């Protein structure tokens, strides 16, 4: 792996981390606001997180 590759990978991970943090944080807020909707919020959260994860992994592997 060359240095630009590593920097790119780091940037991807930072971006994905921010995104996941946002998803997780907002989901927690949602759950706190409406505990009875926990199941639905978690499903949506996991789907969005999975999509983001797919994007991040795709970028990582394209750059590898």
């Amino acid at each position, binding site marked *: 792996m060359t240095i630009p590759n590593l920097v790119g990978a780091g940037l991807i991970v930072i971006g994905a981390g921010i995104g996941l943090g946002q998803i997780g944080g907002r989901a927690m807020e949602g759950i706190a606001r409406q505990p009875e909707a926990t199941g639905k919020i978690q499903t949506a959260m996991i789907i969005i997180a999975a999509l983001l994860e797919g994007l991040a992994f795709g970028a990582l*592997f394209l*750059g*590898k």
Partner: protein
Amino acid sequence: MEQLLNDFSPGLFIMQSILMLAVIFLMVKFAWKPIVSSLEEREEGIKKALESAEEAKAEMENISSANEQLLKEAREEREKLMKEARETKAKMIADAEEAAQEESAKIIAKAKVSIELEKKEALEQIKKEAAKLSVALAEKILQEELSSASKSAEHVDKLLKEVTLKS
């Protein structure tokens, strides 16, 4: 990306796809179909059982309310009967009392009549006796005091008046 494509094995992909098709087919035929259908059957059975239990409950409620109704009616009937019986009893007693009173009144009236009659008779008798007595008395007096007949007669009347019986 290059390494990714380099690692990709077309042969494995073909094998995997063929086997996956076969496995999906086998699993659907031998596992999922029977499992899912028996699960659905069971769910249907549970649903039906619940429904019939609900129905049975409703029926039970119906029956018990009917029972209640019957019981109520029976109770009313009994009340009615009791009331009637009581009324009859009271009527009978009243009738009997009335009859007895009438009877006794009749008897008393009869007795009174006979007493009256007897009294009258007795009075008649007494009057007759008294008349006889007075006649006898008068004879005697007349024998003694014939001289003053008129005076004597006055005297007799006066006596007779005095001896009028108080009834």
